[in-house]
Every structure is written in structure tokens, then in C-alpha cells.
């Protein structure tokens, strides 16, 4: 019983921790803010790729 109680407690703490980390990312749109910084780098990379451009 004590083991189950501990497991539930740890699970709760993990979930709370994850929530505390991810919810601000979600709410303040940090995921999108980060990925929007990656896009220009990727576009530069695509411009450098050799392509067999033709009809």
C-alpha cells in the first residue's frame, strides 16, 4: 500500500512538474516563438542545396 501511495505521489509530482514546465511554454507560445527562429536558418540551407531545376 505504501509503495502504491509513493508511486501515486511520484506520478503526481512528475505530472505537476511537467505541467509547470510545459504549461508556460503552451500559454506563452514559446514553442512557436522558438520554431519561428529556426525557419530562416532552414530557408538559407535550402537555398544552398544543388537542384536539378528543369521542366
Amino acid at each position, binding site marked *: 500500500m505504501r509503495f502504491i501511495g509513493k508511486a501515486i505521489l511520484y506520478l503526481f509530482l512528475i505530472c505537476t512538474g511537467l505541467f509547470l514546465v*510545459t*504549461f508556460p511554454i*503552451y*500559454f*506563452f*507560445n514559446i*514553442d*512557436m*516563438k522558438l*520554431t*519561428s527562429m*529556426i*525557419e530562416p536558418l*532552414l*530557408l538559407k*540551407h*535550402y537555398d544552398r*542545396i544543388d*537542384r*536539378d*531545376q*528543369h*521542366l
Partner: protein
Amino acid sequence: MAVKKFKTMVNPKPIKGDKKYGELYKPGGKVRKRREWRGVGDTLYDYWRWLGILLTLGKFVAVPRNVKAMFRYRWMANYLAVPMMVDRFTQGLRGEYLRMAHEQQDLIIIDVAKLLGNIFRGDRRIGNDEEFSKINVLVDENEMTAVMMGFPNLKSTSRETPSTYVSVLLNQHAAEHYIDVAQEYGLAGDVCPMPEAEAGVSIDDDAPILGACAVQCNTTCDGSLLGNGVISRRLEKEDGIPVFQLPAPLRHKEDDVQDYAAEEIRRAIKFIEEHTGHKWDWDYYFECARRVNYATKCRNEWLDMNKTDYPQIFGGNLALYTETNYMAICGKVPEFERCDRRLMKLAEKAYKKQKMAAPEYRHRAIVWGVQSHFYMDFLVWLLNCWGIVPLTDMLSCINTEMIAETDTPENREQAYYDMAMLTEEMIMRNRTHGGYKVLLDDLFEFVEQYNADMIILWEHITCKALDGMHGLFEDKARERGIPLIWVDHQLFDPRVISRQGVRDQVNQYMRTVMQEEPLDPTLEILDDDNSW
């Protein structure tokens, strides 16, 4: 004639959380300042769904070849914007409406992730799994996939769907590079930018190479038909992938074209059998047909609901899902049937409670024409900014008839005609072809059926089929006293008419002609030209 006017309906229940959605936009920014506060319950629900989307994306990225593809194909950069697309489509939604949107959008994301995974697995440049490549049949983006309903072990794979169609949904600027490439090769700038961009992907050497064969269709317009010629040239002459051109009759309402259409379906199936070695499976076909019928039944019921004072699945929630489920899925993916059931439950629940999706319903509108692909969430904006309820849109007004779903000798013959009918009447072309009645007369019938007091008429400026009815639309609306708002756009290219340019056309009409003030003034002018 007096102008028709709908009596404003005020939502008795206040909308929880944010109400000034324009404040979430960062002027000139690519993304928004923060996500929407929808009250505790709905925010947590949205957050939970966001985690689910991240999980889907995480699983996708965990496959090394998908990462390799990310660095090979320019259009893959657009997939960085997946969560934002969902945010755009769910703006202002609460309760059942938010849940319906997520049910659809999240499933579409999973489906597109699977499609991408399959493409890169078979792609000669990326995964190069030759055996897997052989079970893929390439189809157009804008093609009814009915001819694949009897091949349980083959995949109908559209390269254009992820490279252009979905990309533009994710990032309004996604097609610009490919449009420019096509024009550099001499293509005129006045053709529809959708096939133009698809041709541009092929010219730019940015289309994955896979598949046992390809089935192209004359889809929606002269541009699509001709754009396929650019793509098939490279497929056949360079990649060695044989192509079958499936011409669906344009005058699809005429009895004397149906034998021709059915024969082309037979030939397409035979072509696929020859090039894949797989045989047509009638059991699987009728299983898919039952799912197609269920989707049709659900859509009919949703549209019937939208004829009442309490529409439930409408606007963005109706348009994108219908396009995906009807055309690309076409009964082949059971998960969409389960999604239909969940949507039906949610819609019925909200309908019983007489729920409303916005603080006020001021106008009931039929949205007609070809919507701006780079601004598909415009329908959400219409509701939130002006209280205009987009009851249905032209692309959702598709087949309402049931097809044969039990396996009998007669039905096997009928099945060719059913597949032909679905192909002829696939999204967009069922209205842009087939004579003026299906485009012009039907619109005004829908206005009556849905008790609409307004028409929002998307004028995709290079869609010749729609442009060709411009004056007649105006004449008829004037005769009947229906306010008609023209909304010009260039489908895939926001450089011609921006999102704000799209909104301005409604803003000006609502203020000057209708003499109304917006429901949410913060949404009237948004600096989102650089936004995804």
C-alpha cells in the same frame, strides 16, 4: 426589392476568457504573443490537445529519415507551424466547438504525418525503401481517390498534398517560392497559383520520387489539367513512373457522359492492377463505400442542423474536414468514421442545449466560391469579428447521395458509376464545372434553404470558372435583395491580396453598406502580413 435581414441572436451564455482576440497578435510578427485564455476548463483541454500534437510531431521527428527529409525539401520548413495552424482555426472557440475543431484538426495532423512518413520511406532520395515504394500509387492533391477504394494493400499517395496544399494552410507564404520558379520558366502569372505552385515544386526538383505508378485527374480546372502535364513529364520521362490520365467529364450532370466516365474508372483500376500487381478487392471496396455513405449521412445531418437557428458544425470546422474526409480519405481510413461519430455526438449535444459559438449571430451567410487557401481561418474571423455565421461553404456542398454499399453483381457494375460520380463531383469541380446551374442557381437555392441573409463570395481572381459568373452573381443577388460581399484573393499567393486585404473588403462593406460596428474591433485590422 427590400434587403433581406436576419434578426440578431444574442448568446445568453457569456463567452469565457479572452474576448479581444486582436490583442494576441504581435504586430509584424510571425507568431502570436501568447495563446488564448478560454477559461480554466477549455484552456486545459486545449493545452492537453496541444501536448497530443507535440507527441504526434515528436514521433514523426524520432524517425531519422524524416529529419533527413526536413533538410532536403524546402516545403518541410512549413511544418514548424503545425501548432499555430490549430490555434488559428480554434480562435474564439469554446466548449463543444473547441472539441469539434480539435477532433478534426488533430486527426488531420496525424493523417498528414502518416502520409509524410510513407512518402519519405519510399522516396528514392530519402528512405529509398523500394518494396514499400511499389505499393504507392501517386494521386493529385485535388483528386478524388475513389479508384483506390478497392486496393486495401496499396497507398494512395499525394505528393502535392504535403508539399503545397497543407503547406499553405500552415504558412501563408509557403507557395511563393514555387510560384516564382514556375514563372521563371515562362509560365504566365495569371493562371491559378495552386497548379502553378505544384508545377513549381516539380520544376524545382523538390518533389519526392516514389510510387509504382500515378493516376492524374483533370480535377478542377484548365490550369490543374495543364499543370499535371508538367508533373507527368518528369514522372514518366525521368523517374520512369507510368502515368494514367483520368479525364472526368466536365458536364457531369448530363446522362450522356456517364458511360464514358465509368469506363475511364475501369481503365484506371486496370492500369493500377497492371502496374502494382495488386488485384481489385470488392469486399474492401464495399467496406469503404459504407464509410463514404456514413460520412455523407453525417455531413447531410450537419448541414440540416445549419439550416436551423442553431448551426453547429460550420465555418472552419466544416470546410477543412470535409475536404479531407470526402476527397483524400474517401472511406479508406476507419479512424475518420470514428471521428464522424464523435463529431455527431458533440454537435447533437450542443444543438440540444441551443449553444452558440459567438456572443452574437448577426448574419447568416452562405460562403460561395473558392476560398483563400492562405487564409482558411477567415471563416473563424468572420464569426469573431462581425458575428457573421458561415453556415456552409461551396466546397462543403458536395455529394448528398448514397452509393451502392452491398456486394451484389448489379452493385459491382453500379460501383463504377458511383466512383465516376464521386470523381466527377469532387470538391470544387462539382460547382465550377457542370454548367451554370450548379454554380449560379444552386447558390440562391441554398440561400433560401439556409435562411441566409448574406452571401460571402470568394472571388479567387484567377479562377476562370468563377470569374465567368461574376456579373450574373451580382445581377441575381441584386434581384433578390441579398447583400453580397465580394472577397477577392489569389488562393495561394498573399503577395497579390494580403490577409488584411481580404479582411478590408468585408470591413468596408460592413461599415459602409451595412452600417454596422464589429463585434470585436481588435480583429478589424491586424498586422499579420509576416505571420505564418
